[in-house]
């Protein structure tokens, strides 16, 4: 390796470009799909021909003409609702995942750093919530507090924070026993400094992977709950409930209800591709062959 003195630190962006040049096809595909979804979500009002709640035509109109993908059971434009759905479903999933990471990640690292009763208390609570599937708990809590978007976000964030806590605590637990943490502690650094400068940089790789996977889980949970009619409520456009509302069309050999489901599937597959590639890059992990 070249001596550290002569090595110039590349900017974040140029390193990304260099990285992408050697990336696999699947990774490229994943990144492009994610970018496309992000653009649709950010500029939904500009891109969509109609508003998400506007009744613009007759119910169940065929594809083509004014409505590229036809209309739904109330006569709303399916294409516009798909585009707004990117904003609503993906946006809520992003907020939920970030909240889960903020809560679970912070608690997990603090628990690993201090140990003691705080660690015990958090770990036992997390054990209980991890012992049964989060969808069951989500259904329970949504029925107690009522179905609304804030309730959905808080419920799923709290449930997923338990999974993040487990990972963050385990990853940070491996770091806090290192000598450099001891030295930093003896030097009298504060806990915030320890977490930001010593622990976080060392557990970033597993946390990023977990963020991608967690996002997929949250996203699929939101879609499933909305599909079941207890998640995002109408008239907000959302992919899960769009499938449910137009499901009757399938009996006539019409694939319109499959489009939102395909939109969900495409995003989760794209994210999985990118995570795969990231894992391959960071750990040199190869297939078992």
């Amino acid at each position, binding site marked *: 390796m070249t001596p550290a003195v002569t090595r110039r630190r590349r900017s974040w962006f140029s390193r990304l470009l260099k990285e992408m040049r050697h990336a696999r096809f699947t990774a490229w595909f994943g990144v492009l799909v994610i970018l496309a979804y992000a653009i649709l979500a950010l500029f939904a009002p500009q891109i969509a021909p109609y508003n998400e709640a506007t009744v613009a035509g007759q119910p169940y109109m065929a594809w083509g003409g004014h409505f590229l993908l036809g209309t739904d059971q109330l006569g709303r434009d399916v294409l516009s609702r798909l585009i707004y759905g990117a904003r609503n479903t993906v946006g809520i999933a992003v907020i939920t995942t970030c909240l889960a990471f903020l809560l679970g990640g912070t608690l997990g690292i603090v628990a690993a750093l201090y140990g003691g009763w705080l660690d015990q208390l958090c770990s036992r609570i997390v054990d209980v919530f991890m012992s049964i*599937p989060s969808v069951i708990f989500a259904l329970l809590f949504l029925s107690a507090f009522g179905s609304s978007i804030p309730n959905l976000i808080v419920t799923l964030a709290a449930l997923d924070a338990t999974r993040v806590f487990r990972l963050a605590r385990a990853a940070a637990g491996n770091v806090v026993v290192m000598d450099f943490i001891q030295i930093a502690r003896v030097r009298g650094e504060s806990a915030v400094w320890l977490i930001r400068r010593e622990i976080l940089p060392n557990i970033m790789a597993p946390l990023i992977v977990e963020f991608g996977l967690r996002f997929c889980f949250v996203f699929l949970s939101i879609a499933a709950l909305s599909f079941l009619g*207890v998640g995002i409520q109408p008239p907000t456009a959302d992919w899960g409930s769009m499938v449910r509302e137009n499901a009757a069309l399938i009996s006539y050999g019409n694939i319109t209800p499959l489009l939102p489901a395909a939109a969900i599937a495409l995003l989760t597959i794209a994210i999985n591709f990118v995570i795969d590639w990231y894992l391959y890059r960071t750990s040199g992990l190869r297939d078992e062959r």
Partner: protein
Amino acid sequence: MTDVAEVPGRTGPGRQRAIVPLLGTVLQRLGLGLVTLFMVSIVIYLSIEALPGDFAQSILGRSASPETVEAYRQMLGFDRPPIERYLSWMAGAVHGDFGSSLTSRPGAVRAVSAIIGPRLYNTFFLAAMTAIIAVPLAILLGALTALYRGSFFDRAVNGLTLMTISVPEFFIAYILCYLVISKDMFAMTQLGQLLPSWLSSGIGSVLSLMPKLPTLAAINESTTIGERIWKLLLPSLTLTLVIIAHMMRMTRAVLINVLASPYIEMGRLKGLSSAWIVFKHALPNAWAPIATVVAFNLAYLIVGVVVVEVVFVYPGIGQLMVDAVRSRDMPVVQACALIFAATYIVLNLVADVIAIVTNPRLMYSR
């Protein structure tokens, strides 16, 4: 060759002594499972406390007299302190009595257990049927992909199963429904019109080979067992596709590990056939991790069942729970959640116990 117990020092008394720590570990794990179930039941019970205080009033409407509201509250037990209510709820739950539904009125009590009973049977029927299809299929596919690893078949199965785990359950369900519905009229459907005619007629002729499976699993008491199985084929197939990937990949990974060991090479040198080696010599040594992952996936089946029951309008406990969540019928939701949680915890417990019992390293005290 296969019998490890013949190694000197591991025979006779060693095995006898080993049972005690093994039993200890298993009992410890069972105890832990019970404690978890107890904690989960508290969380489930506490959720009813989050209901607004005037719940009885809002259910009965504004015109209800204070006496009616009070009678309703008493019938549901809201007049007693929470701890007492929890204890009596738990005592009832152990005996299969989950109280009465919030849809019951004074004079017409609807017991939760009476609502749940038949639906619980339906759900377990669907889950059992799926397990009977999915588990052997997953192990067979895992063994075949391990045997022909790197081949086109291996990559195709791997890619397909990766797809099925990363898409929502209702997507798989509706695609299957779509295929069945459009099997005789694919060329006339909107997708068939979009594709070139040779392609759509080709797809149409392949699709028309499929049996005409029912896309609705509506059943009642008079449904015969054969008819029930026929109606449940599509839901089971959906659930199979959802859970098969994990089991298959685990079987494949474990088998590839075992196939690398010297005794397998010995078998090959003796001239045994590949299929004989995999099924007779490799698979018996791979049972432990496979059994664990199977139990884990059967537990996962319990969640998958909720969405699939709704898609196929199957009167199971998952659909009941979703309906109860929408109408905020808490006693029913609690009972369903408790049943799901208990099944999940017990199946995971079974997975753990299998892993402990089949791990030879735990059989001998250190």
